[in-house]
């Protein structure tokens, strides 16, 4: 169980408030799509949960622990439950695919034996239809689609409880999109908490349970998909319209 709670969270960049006094509890075991126009702060929210950014004000509390904690043990404990999947895969360019995957696997799954780790890597490679020969390759030698899938493997291999996905379908060819959507659906069936930022609303909206609508760093609404789609709020309505007009 991983609860994520924002309490009066603000985030400033170059003196400007990107996120302004946000307070909400992320729906647990549900898939929440985050919608907003550019500059709404929709990218910052998952980064604050993922520990990439720290709040300038307020607190992001994960399982009772403030994300600002400086205790290495607690940081590791929090991060072992959360995976952030980057839009470009976020792979370390001077490491091979296997080393990239092992970065999180070795750090968070020290209880596994070497053969268990290898078996887990092989299982995920098969799941994402990637050959074993990809393991020694550097990210520069992969297609964007493959980079994305390896990023997914690195995120999912530690069996997280919270998955934060930035543009899951961007840069993916059709088969990879199908594999990524399968993984997201499987996460849903396992009851993982997921947040997704995506421009591909026609594919993400039908599978979302909740929708968080942000505008100019503030929450407009956080509600179930049905309620948001039937919302009378003009800003919400216009934002959803914007997505479909792309």
């Amino acid at each position: 169980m991983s609860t994520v709670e924002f309490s009066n969270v603000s985030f400033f960049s170059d003196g400007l408030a990107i996120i302004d006094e946000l307070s909400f509890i992320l729906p647990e075991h549900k898939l929440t799509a985050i919608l907003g126009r550019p500059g709404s702060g929709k990218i910052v929210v998952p980064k604050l949960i993922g520990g990439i950014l720290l709040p300038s004000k307020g607190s992001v509390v994960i399982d009772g622990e403030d994300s600002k904690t400086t205790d290495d043990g607690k940081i590791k404990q929090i991060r072992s439950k959360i995976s952030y999947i980057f839009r470009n895969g976020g792979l370390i360019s001077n490491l091979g695919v296997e080393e990239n995957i092992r970065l999180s696997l070795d750090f968070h799954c020290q209880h596994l034996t070497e053969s268990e780790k290898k078996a887990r890597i092989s299982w995920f490679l098969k799941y994402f239809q990637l050959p074993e020969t990809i393991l020694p390759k550097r990210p520069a030698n992969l297609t964007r689609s493959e980079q994305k899938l390896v990023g997914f493997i690195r995120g999912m291999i530690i069996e997280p409880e919270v998955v934060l996905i930035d543009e899951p379908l961007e840069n993916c060819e059709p088969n990879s999109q199908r594999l990524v959507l399968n993984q997201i659906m499987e996460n849903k069936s396992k009851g993982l908490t997921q947040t997704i930022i995506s421009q591909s609303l026609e594919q993400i909206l039908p599978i979302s349970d909740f929708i968080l609508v942000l505008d100019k760093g503030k929450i407009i609404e956080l509600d179930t998909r049905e309620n948001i789609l039937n919302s009378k709020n003009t800003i919400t309505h216009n934002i959803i319209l914007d997505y479909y007009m792309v």
Partner: protein
Amino acid sequence: MINALAQNIGESIVGWVKLQLQFLTFLRQVVVEFMVFYREKQVSYLVLLRQVLFTGYQALSLIVLIAIAIGGLIILEGYTLLENFGQSDLLYGILVAVITRELSSLITAFIIIARSGNAIATELGNMRVNMEIDALKSIGLSPISYLVVPRTIGVVVSLLVLNVYFNVSGLFGGWLVSSWFYPIDFNVFFSKLLAKLTLTDIVISVVKSLLFGFFIAVIASYQGLNVRYATTEVPQRTILAVVQSITVVILINIGIALLFYT
């Protein structure tokens, strides 16, 4: 107008102090992470090995070549000059003073700044732009612990070892050139040289290497990690890393010389 000038000067001073405080905070973090390095060794010893390979091993031939050339030049120039005064034995003292006390650590440091300091700042800057640093943070790996500390240890170890190689090659180069132009017995040359070499010279050379290596790596990492948005910042930060490293190395060298030789 005077008010505006005073305000500008004041703002510049405040800005400079802020930057220094920011660097000191980074320095403190590096020192703290040094202490817990062994805990993260499972994932960062690879970075350390790569750093030693790049900074130490790959620079070895260049260091040896330069050391032999400098040792040879000192003998060639010095012997010609001192022989006129019948003081050619002073050459051994000069060789120790110039190579062991000063040039070995200084030239090694400059070569490492040019090769590794440059490379570290560029690599970390590009990692920052490509969101690789964010990826490490999301995994829970501290960029300082995973990237900076192993690189710092790698540079310190490499600089120390290269310094030893520089000394050996420089002194050997001295003998090689002298035996070519003014044949001297190998044993005589080195026994006279060792008679001039004191424990303080060796200790100072080692201390310099440790300090130079530490600051070169920390400054380069600091500048690399301070790239924020664009790849165009990378060369700017790299230049800053090189300039600041050279300045700090020279200042440390002067400080040590004043401390031990005055």
